[in-house]
């Protein structure tokens, strides 16, 4: 085992996979000579050459559309959208094309590709470098959506995504890139897409979260532990397909569920998690399935005070946990 940061886990997975299989290519803005604005693709250009590490024009629809074509002709593209906030121009190619190719062709064509993108706030990115975009895509069968939050999960799931025969949207919380460190095996491994992970066991309350919020929840759970409340923290890791079994098993045990997410509250993916629990664990619930999320304002302001206020903080999360535990 070695200790790595989240960004290193991304990098290492890309490097090792490209080394393993020369059908894999990387494409995006500044991923080549520059090594990526977050350095996720550092050194790949030198190692694998400009034909496999493509500095694309500034055109997100073009990046995804061309990647789809490459996937259709035997390559395995890993496309980077520089910031998740800039994925919107590619929504058509993702939803109409990548996600529907297999179904619409009766299985004759598939679209093995990965779309990596840094999302989330807390980096003074302002309205357009902070967004959590998952809800735009979670109503898109045909697409898998993975959002791991620790180095171990990131590396194992990025490899799995690259080896998956279907399109995978791979969300990386940018604030955690250099904030979160953890042990990662030195040998090759993959983790299954669609499998949640109980990041902290507990019996009084289940909290479901991912991204930066997962780490805030773990911190809050520590606090609550000192207050005598045992919080179980479940990291879905994959949003679509969602591992309902693990989530429901936990809630059936604790009787209480809190869903914490950074995106705007209304219409966020946390609503899906909450609605699923509310429907499928109804008989076990000892309190309302509660959501704590970003406020319903367009996005996170640049001003650092307002930015901090936007994010569900460890304080706010602890408070929500206490309230639900005491229900």
């Amino acid at each position: 085992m070695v200790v790595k940061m989240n960004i290193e886990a991304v990098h290492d997975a890309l490097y090792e996979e490209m080394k393993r299989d020369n059908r894999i290519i990387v494409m995006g803005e500044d991923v080549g000579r520059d090594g990526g604005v977050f350095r996720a693709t550092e050194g790949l250009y030198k190692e694998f050459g400009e034909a496999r590490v493509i500095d694309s024009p500034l055109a997100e629809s073009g990046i995804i559309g061309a990647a789809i074509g490459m996937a259709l002709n035997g390559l395995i593209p890993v496309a980077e959208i520089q910031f998740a906030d800039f994925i919107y121009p590619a929504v058509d190619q993702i939803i109409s094309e990548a996600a529907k190719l297999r179904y619409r062709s009766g299985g004759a064509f598939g679209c093995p590709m990965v779309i990596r993108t840094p999302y989330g706030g807390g980096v003074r990115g302002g309205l357009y470098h902070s967004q959590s975009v998952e809800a735009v895509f979670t109503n898109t069968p045909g697409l898998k959506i993975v959002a791991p939050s620790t180095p171990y999960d990131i590396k194992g799931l990025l490899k799995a995504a690259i080896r998956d025969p279907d399109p995978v949207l791979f969300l990386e919380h940018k604030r955690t890139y250099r904030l979160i460190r953890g042990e990662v095996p030195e040998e090759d491994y993959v983790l299954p897409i669609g499998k949640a992970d109980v990041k902290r066991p507990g019996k009084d309350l289940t909290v479901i979260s991912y991204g930066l919020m997962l780490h805030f929840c773990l911190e809050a759970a520590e606090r609550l532990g000192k207050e005598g409340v045992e919080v179980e923290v479940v990291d879905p890791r994959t949003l679509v397909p969602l591992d309902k079994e693990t989530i429901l098993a936990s809630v059936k045990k604790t009787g209480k569920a809190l869903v914490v997410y950074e995106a705007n509250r209304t219409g966020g993916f946390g609503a899906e998690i909450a609605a699923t629990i509310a429907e499928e664990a109804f008989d076990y619930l000892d309190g309302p399935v509660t959501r704590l999320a970003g406020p319903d304002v367009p996005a996170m302001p640049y001003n650092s005070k307002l930015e901090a206020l936007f994010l569900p903080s460890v304080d706010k999360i602890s408070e929500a946990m206490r309230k639900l535990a005491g229900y």
Partner: protein
Amino acid sequence: MASTKTSETKVSPHVSLGLSPDNLMQIYYKMVLTRALDERAWALNRMGKVGFVASCRGHEAAQIGSASVIRPGVDFVLPYYRDLGVVMTVGLTPREQMLSVLAKAEDINTHGRQMPGHWGHAGLRIISGSSPVATQLLHAAGIAYASKLKQEDAVSFVYFGDGATSKGDTHEAMNFAGIYKLPIVFICEFNGLAISAPQEKQMAVQNVADRARGYGFPGVTVDGFDVFAVYEATREAWERARRGEGPTFIECKVYRLFPHSSDDDDRRYRSQEEVEAARKKDPLDRFRSYLRAEGLLDDAKDAEIQSRVKREVDEATDYAERAPDPAPGDLFTQVYAE
């Protein structure tokens, strides 16, 4: 406009292009077949058996003239919904077409899931298409990039209408193809209408092919009613692509002889006199006249082809009409790899 050479020396165009009589008869057969399938779909539509038809009438010379250059199963083809003539030329069978028109379980194109005109055939390298206009241009560019990276001799042929040229994806695809000098041929079937929108509401230029030079590759405008003009331009583009010299944009000026689709009423936006006048220039008639003038076709031979086509289309229709619908369970399959 047309790039065919003026025949001062009286050499017939097909001769100067090196097309044999057999080649011509093959083109003619595909044209007749395409027409018959198109007519059949309309007939079934009027009988209430088929929900949707987008006719290729008026586009046949452009489609079949260009697709005759394609090496089936080697070159990639990305047609749009109007390209019946393209896919038939590349090798789709009448049965495969009718199964798709009738949305049957056996439909190889979409498994009964998409509207007719959304072809896809892995063996023939016809890439599965969708309805959103112009997305396929980027796929064609990505495919061509992969061919180049793998050093495989395959050219991507991507088809689209004039309407598609307005989309951002078209720009992004042409730009990407230009940067990497990709083996790709852009074929625009320019009928001057995007459903009802006339050319002047779509662009401020006469020939959209002129845009190609802004992406660093040539654009040519040809008479899309002239099989030979289209064939010649396409073959040149294909050779250019194979020589590693990059993309070409070919604009075929055609006329859409029928309404946009079976849901459309074209009397709302164009005069029927105009349509009638255009019908007199029907590309199938024109090609037939050429063959007759060249002594390559007579009544007997024509009747033989017509009856062969009729038989094929009848058989295909019968087969498809009897073929089963998808099973209820087919609603849920192939969302992801199984």
